[in-house]
C-alpha cells in the first residue's frame, strides 16, 4: 500500500515536473526566436511567473522583437527590462491588482512616471481599476507632455471614470492637432475644468524652447 502510495506520488511528481517544464518553454516562441534567445527568454518568463508577475507582456515583447527581426541581444534586453518594470509596477501598486494594471503600470514607468505616481493613483482609485488611467498617462507622455506634468494631471482626475480619462486624452490630442503645444493643450484642458485642480504640476514646469 505504502509502496503504491509512494509510486503514485512519484507519478504525480513526475507529471508535475513535466508540466512545469512544459510551462517554462513558451510554445509561441518556438520558431520565432533562435534557440539561444528563446532559452534566455524562457528563463526570464519562469522567473516572472515564480514572482507572480504577468508573463504575457514579456512574451509579446519578445515576439515583437522577433517580428521586427531585432538581434537576439536586443530582444533579451527588452524582455529583461520589461520584467524589471513589471516588478517595479507591481511593488508600487501593491497587492490585489490585475495583470493588466501591472502591465499598464510598467508602460507608465517606462514613459517616465515615478513609482510614487502609481502608488498614489492606486490609493486614490481604491476599488477601481487603474489600467486606463495608467494607459492615458503613458499616452500623454508619448504625445510630448513631460512625465511629471502628465502624472499630475492624471492624478488630479483620479476620482473620474475611465471614459473621462479617454475624453481628456482625446481632447488634448485634438488641441495638439490644431496647433497647441502638448503642454499648452494639457494645461488648457486642465484650466477648462476637465480636471479637479487649477494647476496640476506643482513640480518642475515645462522646459525652455
Amino acid at each position: 500500500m505504502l509502496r503504491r502510495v509512494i509510486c503514485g506520488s512519484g507519478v504525480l511528481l513526475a507529471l508535475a515536473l513535466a508540466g512545469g517544464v512544459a510551462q517554462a518553454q513558451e510554445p509561441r516562441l518556438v520558431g520565432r526566436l533562435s534557440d539561444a534567445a528563446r532559452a534566455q527568454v524562457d528563463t526570464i518568463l519562469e522567473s516572472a511567473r515564480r514572482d507572480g508577475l504577468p508573463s504575457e507582456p514579456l512574451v509579446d515583447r519578445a515576439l515583437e522583437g522577433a517580428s521586427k527581426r531585432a538581434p537576439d541581444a536586443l530582444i533579451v534586453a527588452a524582455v529583461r527590462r520589461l520584467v524589471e518594470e513589471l516588478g517595479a509596477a507591481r511593488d508600487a501598486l501593491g497587492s490585489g491588482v490585475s495583470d493588466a494594471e501591472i502591465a499598464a503600470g510598467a508602460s507608465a514607468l517606462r514613459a517616465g512616471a515615478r513609482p510614487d505616481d502609481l502608488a498614489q493613483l492606486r490609493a486614490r482609485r481604491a476599488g477601481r481599476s487603474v489600467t486606463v488611467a495608467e494607459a492615458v498617462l503613458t499616452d500623454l507622455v508619448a504625445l510630448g507632455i513631460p512625465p511629471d506634468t502628465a502624472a499630475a494631471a492624471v492624478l488630479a482626475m483620479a476620482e473620474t471614470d475611465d471614459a473621462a480619462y479617454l475624453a481628456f486624452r482625446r481632447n488634448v490630442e485634438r488641441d495638439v492637432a490644431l496647433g497647441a503645444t502638448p503642454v499648452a493643450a494639457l494645461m488648457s484642458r486642465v484650466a477648462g475644468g476637465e480636471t479637479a485642480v487649477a494647476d496640476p504640476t506643482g513640480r518642475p514646469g515645462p522646459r525652455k524652447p
Partner: protein
Amino acid sequence: MDGVRRRISAAALLAWSVGAAGPLQAQLTATADAGFGAVEYEGFLGSAALSITPGLRYDARSFSVAAQGAWVLYESGRDLLQGAAAAAWLTPPVGGVRGEVSGFGGIATYTEAATSGYGLLRGRLHLTGGTSGVWAGAGMGRAYAGTFDIATSELALGGWLVRPGFTLTTTLMRGVGVDTGSTRAAYVDLMASGRWTRGALELEGVAGLRPWSELGDEGLFGDLQVRVALTRRVAAQVGAGRYLTDPLRGSVAGRWISAGVRLSLWSGRSQVSTPDERLRAAVRLPHPLPADAPELRLADAAFGVRGITLRASGARSVEIAADFTDWQPVRLQSERGGEWRLDLALAPGVYRLNVRVDGGPWIVPRGATPQEDEFGTLVGLVIVR
C-alpha cells in the same frame, strides 16, 4: 507671420498706392534684421533668443511678392529655421471695385522636431473710395505638422483708411481649422493695425481681440514696434507684443520683446518682417507620422468584441501586427469606403501595434500614439477601455 500677411495684403497695397504721391513704382527691397530679445511661448519657459532675418520684397503697381527667412537661436542652444513667402495681385479698378487674389505660405523646422508648414489662398473684393475702402473675402488652405494635417479656411471683412503719414486697417475674421479626423476648431478675431511715420521715426502696431474661440483662448493680443532710422541704410528698432494661437499657420501663442537693427541692403522703403514673426514658435511634435499613414479607430462591437478599423483608401491589402496577434501579420477585411476591419476580443489595457499597406514598411497608423520601441523603430500605442 502676421507681419507678412499684413504688409502683403491688398488693403495695405491700396493704402500705399493711394497714400503715395503718385502711382506706386516697381521697387525691389532687400533687408536683413538682427535682434536680441526674450520670448515666452505657451507651454514653454521664457527664453532669451537671438534672431537673424533676411527679407526680399518686390512691389509693382498691382502686384507684390515677398519672401523672408529666419534663424532663431534660443538660450537652450536649440534653434528654429523658417521661411515664408507671400504674393498678392490686384485687378484693375472697375467703378471703384478691385479684385484681389493672394496667397502665402511658410515652412519651419525646430531642433529635433517635425517640420511644420502652412499655405493659404485668398480672394477678396475691394470697394475703394479715394483715401479709404472696405473689402470682403474668403480663403482656404492647409497647415501641417508631423502627424497632423489641418484644412483651414477663413471669412473676413475689413476696411482701410489713409492719411498723410498714417494708415489704418481693420479686420474681422472667422478662421476654421479641421483636422483629418474631422475635429474642428473655429475662432473669431477682430483687429486693427496701423502705421505712422514722421521723419526718421516709424511706429507700427496691431491691437486685437479674440472674443470667441473653440480652442478656449479668447483674449487680447497686439504688438507695438518703434523704428528709428539712424542712417539711410541702418535703423534701430524695439518692439514687444503678444499673439494667440493661429490654427491657420499652425503656430502657438506667445509673447516677445526685442531690440535690434535693420540693414537696408537694397532700396530702403518696405519692410517684410517683424519681431513677432521672427520669434514665433513652430509646432513641435515628438514623432512625425507619414502624411499618408492609414487612420486607425477602435469601436465596440457585440459581446465585448472590438472592431479595429483602418482607413486606407486605394489600398490592395492592409495588415496589422500587434500584441494581440502575437506579432504575426493579420490581414484585415476590406469594407466599403476604403476601410479595412478586424474584430477581436480585447481586455482593457495598452496595446502596441504596427500596420502596413500593400506589403510596404511597418508603420504607426494615425490614431495610435507613436513611441520609440526597444528595437530602433516606432510602435503605436492604443488604449482599450
